[in-house]
C-alpha cells in the first residue's frame, strides 16, 4: 500500500463521564482539568465532562442514554425545556465539539468509557478504514505491555452513528473493562491514563512529521447482539451468562458452545452456524437494552503508512 498523507490532527477532545457511573473517565477528566494547560502543548486539547448531572448522581444517565443522542435526527430535533436533559446536552456538546460532519468539528474525539465485561482496552469506532484511528490502535498495542488492546468496528453510516465519538472528524470510544459501575479501580484508571497519553504521543509525533509504517490490524466487526433467555410473560431473565463464557471476551465462540446457564441449572448453547467472537459479555448497562453479549467477525485489515500533510 502506498503511504497516505493526512491533515494535521490539531484539535483533540478528551471526554469522560458520558455515562456518569463509568468512573475511570470521570476521574481522568477531573485530573486533566486540574492540570490546566499552559499554552505550550503541541496539540490543542479540550477536556470535557460530558454528562455532569449524571456524574453528580453517579448514574449512567438522568433521563436517557446520552451516548445514543448523536444521530443526525436527534442532533437536529427541536428542543424545549421539557426535552430530556441528555438530548439538550447532546446538542450543546455538538455545538462545542462539532458540528458533526462539518469542517469546524474537532479532528479527534476520544470518549472514555468503562464496562463490567472483561474486554481489556478497546477502541470502538464506526470505520474500518480510518487510518488515524487504526494507527493509534497499533501504537497502543505496541506500547501497552500488560493490557490487551483491540479495535472494534460498528458498521453504521455516519448519519445513524449515535455516539459522542461520531461528532469528531475522527473519533473512538476508549472502553476499558472489567470495572463495576460506580467503582474506580486503580489499575483501570492507570490503563486509561496510559492509553490517553499514548494517543497524545502518537498525535504529537504524527503532527511533527514522523512516518508511521503500515502493517496489519485485527478488526472485530460487530455482527449481532444476543439477548438473555426471558420469561415470555414477565420478560424477566431466566438465565445468566454461562460460566464457560463469562469473562471470555474475544475468545472464539463455536456453534454448540455453552452460552447461558438457567437459574434452574440447564445449559443453553450457541445455536448460530458461524463461529464468532463474543464481546461485551455481561455488561450491566445492557440488560435493559436486551443484550447479553455482542458477536463479531474478525479480519486482518491492511493499513498504509501515514505521514502528515501540513498543507
Amino acid at each position, binding site marked *: 500500500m502506498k503511504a497516505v498523507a493526512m491533515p494535521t490532527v490539531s484539535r483533540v477532545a478528551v471526554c469522560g463521564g458520558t455515562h456518569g457511573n463509568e468512573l475511570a473517565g470521570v476521574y481522568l477528566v477531573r485530573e486533566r482539568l486540574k492540570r490546566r494547560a499552559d499554552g505550550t502543548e503541541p496539540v490543542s486539547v479540550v477536556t470535557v465532562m460530558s454528562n455532569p448531572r449524571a456524574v453528580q448522581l453517579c448514574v449512567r444517565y438522568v433521563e436517557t442514554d446520552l451516548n445514543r443522542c448523536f444521530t443526525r435526527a436527534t442532533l437536529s430535533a427541536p428542543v424545549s425545556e421539557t426535552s430530556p436533559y441528555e438530548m439538550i446536552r447532546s446538542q450543546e456538546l455538538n455545538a462545542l465539539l462539532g458540528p458533526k460532519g462539518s469542517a469546524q468539528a474537532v479532528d479527534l474525539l476520544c470518549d472514555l468509557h468503562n464496562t463490567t465485561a472483561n474486554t481489556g482496552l478497546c477502541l470502538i469506532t464506526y470505520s474500518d478504514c480510518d487510518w488515524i484511528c487504526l494507527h493509534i490502535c497499533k501504537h497502543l498495542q505496541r506500547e501497552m505491555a500488560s493490557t490487551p488492546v483491540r479495535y472494534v468496528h460498528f458498521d453504521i453510516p455516519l448519519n445513524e452513528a449515535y455516539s459522542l465519538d461520531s461528532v469528531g472528524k475522527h473519533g473512538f470510544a476508549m472502553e476499558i473493562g472489567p470495572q463495576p459501575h460506580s467503582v*474506580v479501580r486503580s489499575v483501570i484508571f492507570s490503563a486509561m491514563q496510559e492509553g490517553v497519553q499514548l494517543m497524545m504521543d502518537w498525535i504529537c509525533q504524527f503532527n511533527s512529521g514522523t512516518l508511521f509504517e503500515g502493517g496489519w490490524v485485527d478488526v472485530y466487526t460487530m455482527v449481532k447482539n444476543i439477548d438473555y433467555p426471558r420469561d415470555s410473560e414477565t420478560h424477566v431473565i431466566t438465565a*445468566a451468562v454461562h460460566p464457560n463464557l*463469562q469473562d471470555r471476551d474475544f475468545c472464539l465462540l463455536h456453534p454448540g458452545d455453552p452460552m447461558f446457564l438457567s437459574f434452574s441449572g440447564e445449559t443453553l448453547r450457541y445455536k448460530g452456524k458461524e463461529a464468532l467472537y463474543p464481546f461485551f459479555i455481561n455488561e450491566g448497562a445492557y440488560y*435493559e437494552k436486551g443484550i447479553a453479549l455482542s458477536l463479531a467477525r474478525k479480519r486482518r485489515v491492511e493499513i498504509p503508512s501515514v505521514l502528515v500533510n501540513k498543507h
Partner: protein
Amino acid sequence: TIREKAMALLFLPALARMAVCGGTHGNELSGVYVVQEMERQRKEKGEGVWPIPVTTVLSNPRAVKECRRYIDTDMNRCFSRDTLSSPITDSSPYEVRRAQELNNLLGLKGSTDAIDLICDLHNTTSNMGLTLILCTSSDWVTLHICKYLQTKITKVPVRVLVLDFPISDAYSLESVSKHGFTLEVGPQPHGVVRADIYIIMKEAVDLTIDWIHKFNSGTVFEGGDVETYMLIKSVDYPRDPETRTLTAAIHPQLQDKDFCLLKRGDPLFLSFSGETVNYEEEETLHPFFINEAAYYEKGIAFQLAKKMMLTIPAVRVQKD
C-alpha cells in the same frame, strides 16, 4: 470444670420457619434470582419442595424493578425500633413504609411471633467470597450455621464477620427475626448477575435449609471453635476538602485483598496524581469491603476487623 460443663450440650428450640430475602438492595442481583428460582420451584413442586417451611421475600420490589440500590433511602437501615414504630405519612420514604410491611410479615421484631430465621441475600463489588454477617457473637444457632457452611462449601473462602451491635441498635432486616444473618457474596458488579456467584449463593441457602432440617430432626451438632472477624472501624478515601470528591483510589496492592493482613507501612491508596498513601497505624488488622461501590456515599473505602476465636457449645433440638 465449670467451662467444660458450660460448653456441654445445649438444648435449643426447633426453628419452625425461615425466610429467604432477596433484593433488599435492588441492584444486588444474585438474591433477586435465588428468590425468583425458589418461587418457581414452589410453584412447580408445591409447599413440600423444601424439608422445612420457607417464606421467600423480594424485600424491595420497586428498587428491584428499577435495578437501583434503593428508591428513597437504604432499606437495610430501616429496621431500628424507632424507624419501625414511626408514623407513616404521605411523605414517608418508600423504604420506611416497606420496612414496616416486612416487620408485620416477618416480625414483629422482638416478639415471640417473629419468624425464627431470616437469611438476607446480598452482593458486594468487594472480593469477599462468601461472608456470613452476624449482628451478634452470642447466637449459637447462626454460629452453628456458619460452622456448617464453612465445612460444606469449598469453592470459595467462607468467613464470618461479626458486627456486634447491641440488640437495641440493630437496624438491618435480619434483626427482625429471632435469629438472623446476611449472606454476602462477591465480587459482583451491582446490576449484574454472574452464574458462578449465583451458584455459590444458592448452595449456601440450600445448606442453611439443610442444617435447620437436620437440627430440627435431632442431629447433635458438635461444638468447637469458630474463627470470626470482628468489625473495629471504617476508613474513608482521601477527599478534596472543598468538593469532597475522591483524590485517590484503593492501591493496586490492597485491591481485592479482603481479609488479608494489613500492616503498618502497607499501601492503602494511590492518588490520581500518582502518590501512595500508606497505613500508619500500629495495629495489624484485616481489611474488608475494600472498594464496595455502595459505600463511596457512606464515606467508606474499606473497613477493618480483628480476628476473634469464638467457642460454641454442642447443640441439639429441645424435644417437647
